[in-house]
């Protein structure tokens, strides 16, 4: 299973990076989401998969899966959520103001705006 997961990590990275390199602001945000998923899977795979029960004590189990990556991922999920929300609102406001989500056009639009204001 680890090998398959490693391949999927690669696929998620490819898709995420490709989205980040596009010109559309919204797709860039989506790309960062995919990247996060990729990293989470990578972290999981690092400690081998399904080596024991869920890391909950007092249920008569002796062998557990590695709890440390899970703790790291949990932190990551929450922070990623904050960042995604921030990105999203940022792009939302950018669209409201500049009427585009295209990175290239955004630059020229914001330059125009500034020219008008001065």
């Amino acid at each position, binding site marked *: 299973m680890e090998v398959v997961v490693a391949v999927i990590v*690669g696929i998620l990275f490819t898709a995420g*990076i490709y989205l980040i390199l*596009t010109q559309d602001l919204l797709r860039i945000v989506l790309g960062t989401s995919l990247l996060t998923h990729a990293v989470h899977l990578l972290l999981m795979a690092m400690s081998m998969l399904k080596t024991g029960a869920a*890391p909950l004590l007092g249920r008569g189990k002796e062998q557990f899966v590695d709890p440390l990556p899970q703790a790291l991922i*949990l932190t990551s999920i929450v922070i990623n*959520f904050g960042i995604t929300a921030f990105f999203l609102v940022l792009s939302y406001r950018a669209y409201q*103001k500049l009427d585009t989500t295209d990175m290239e056009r955004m630059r020229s639009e914001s330059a125009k705006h500034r020219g008008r204001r001065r």
Partner: protein
Amino acid sequence: MSLLHLLTLSPFLLAALLPLLGKAVPRLHKGWFAAALSALVFATLLRYLGDIRDGSPIIKSFDWIPSLGISFTVYLDGLSLLFALMITGMGVLVALYSIAYMNAAKESLTRFYVFLLVFMGAMLGLVVSDNLLTLYGFWELTSITSFLLIGYKNEKHRSRYGALKSLLITVAGGLGLLSGFILLYVMSGTYRIRELFEAGAPLMSHPLFLPAMILILFGAFTKSAQYPFHIWLPDAMEAPTPVSAYLHSATMVKAGLYLVARMSPIFSGTSEWFWIVSLGGLITLLYGSVAAIKQTDLKGILAYSTISQLGLIMSLLGLSSLSGIFDGEEQILYAAAGTAAIFHLLNHAVFKGALFMAAGIVDHETGTRDIRKLGGIAQVMPITFTLSLFGAFSMAGLPPFGGFISKEMFLESVIEPLHAGVFGLSTWAALFPIVAWIASVFTFVYSVLFVYRTFLGPRKKPLKNKQIHEAPLLMVIPPVLLAIMALVLGFFPGLVAYSLIRPATEAMIPAVTASGERLPMDLKLWHGLTPALWMTIGVIVVGILLALTAKRWTKVYNFIPRRVSINRAYDISLRFFEHITVRVTSLYMNGSSRSYVKYILGFMLLVLGLILFNSNDVTFRVGAYATIAPYEWVILIGLAAGALAVPFAKSRPVAIILTGTVGYLMVLMFVFLRAPDLALTQMVVESISVTLYLLCFYHLPKLRTERQAVRFRLPNFLVALAVGVLMTLVALTVLGTNPFEPVSDYYVRESYESAGGKNIVNVILVDFRGFDTMLEIMVLGVAAIGIFNMIKLRRKATDVGSRHVSHEGDESEDIAAHFRKAQYEHDGPTTVKAPKEPWIHCVSDLNHDDEENPEDELSDEFEDSESNDSRKKGGDSDA
């Protein structure tokens, strides 16, 4: 930490406290603090005079970075003490003078005195450091404070130009110095100057000896404004006059001389050292004295005169290095050049300080420093006139001033090499007295003209009807003291000869005291009818003739064309480098963030790939993998397919939903991978995220209908694919390589024992790694504040983005414009040429015309913070 350390660091301390002190006593001029501190340090340093006179230096060590062998060792010998006294003594006078000179109402005095104090501290540290690296640090700090002080009037283009020039030249020299020091370390294995002295002969035969010498001399020559690195000093005259008097004549420019004197015991006795130092000094002496005559600005004259006098001292230092190859009588003979150098160093600080202050007074009272406009003000400014006369006579080398004695000694010293017969001196030694004599004539001429054209003769038109009077008392006292001292040094040189000059010279030429004897001092006004006296008489006669006919010579002086000057070479090379930098930088800094992302990814690919390729420990694990149940296959394939489909989605909602699908599949993955907490959290987060995305679309009607697929771009795809493949390889490598004992066992073992929780993941989060979690909550808070600001804040409150400052005729502004132009042209047709401003202004732009005020996202944000908290509470309650 000893008293000496404290003394060295006290100016820094006061500099840090000065803004507070200024607030506490706002009506007191801040110069008083600086003056008081300098006086205190000066008086404390005088206590060491006795020890130093007896030839016993003081050494105090304080470990700074012991692991690198860097200690802040303070070493006070004659040379250091002379400089330290000069620095603090002049510091007192300059600070007093500046109280009257600097207008408290108009200028930011805190800034001025903070820079001045930092400079004083750096200079003190420089002369007492025994460690080469500490010395270097202080050396650079003097360059930086000099830069700040020259550019003090930063609204003036000339100030900024002069400041930059001095910084570029002196810091370039400083880097040379650092390389030289490092070479010395490579050769000897020590950074301590004292230990380097003892390294001796093996050092001299080392192949790196000559490069180290040249690099160190490069540093010294740039700092002491030796030809051809002198060009920064005249431009440094843009600084306020107290600064010119202090940094650019009395102290900082002498740091180079100090270094040469300090390094003399290591390098002297080699022909390269002798020729570079003495000849470099001689050329500078001649060049400076000739150039000074051409100047029409009082401070310009003094600047070139300073260059010339520094050259004089430098050549004396070179001549004194001859004592390194002789013994006995002859050694003492050549060491006299060292005595002359040290004595002239002191004399120069005294008379040049007085003259600079006089020039400042004239400027302050008449409003001009142009000698073509000045004249005939001796009657109204009798004190300033007299002290200028004293200073100028001392500079010209006339009796009965201190300058006469050192000048005589200089002329004697340049005659001596005629009999040396080493280093090819039998052929070239005649050069020394001839050049020295010519330069002395010119020195005489400009000294006389300085006084004559400023104070005597008829009043000229621009100042004819102006009311001119003597400067305020506080402004006159410091230069008067210096002028009196110039006289005292002439009549009673014995006052300093044994207490200061002898120990300083002995520190420079330790060989003379090797046999336990002391260096004989021979400082007096009347030496008898020596050749030097005849030379002086010749200087006076020819000098008076030249001064009387000065007008006729103007054309000859201006013969050197301006177009081929070193200044021009500096300007052209600076412009050239700026141009090249702009071109090269705009090649890759094209303003597109996607390009930057590609650079980062490319670099990551390169480094990670190389490490993977090169490391031998990498193994791929075979077998013993977890099994995959059929339903897990479905999820895995779904994950891959969902991710791959996102870039191909034509409309944005489809892309969003596909990403959401991947997220929910991840939830399922977490379930099967025995991670219930992750699954729960991911579930919540994914639901909110997708809602957020779709909410955005609800408020942006156009986006809902806009259909646009991502255009396929091969370079992007290749980069993405390469990263994907690399990450797969990394994942596989990690599986096979496990060199360390996993730390997780500890958590499993201790979760209940130490922390009392049964949910190991939660215990790790809230207990073992509690700080991480706290910071994580902070990140969420910051994000929430950011989102709140973006939505709530109106433009009114943040309208600072439109502020734009520009200076007309500003070169650097033009360069910036050029840079922007190049940047935007490169960027493709869709861009508009416009100045780029920091991103923070863009945020204020966004808030410009905001009609609606959706708070949904915000509340979502808070919701999650809560859920985050509750998750932790759950962890606790489990316990």
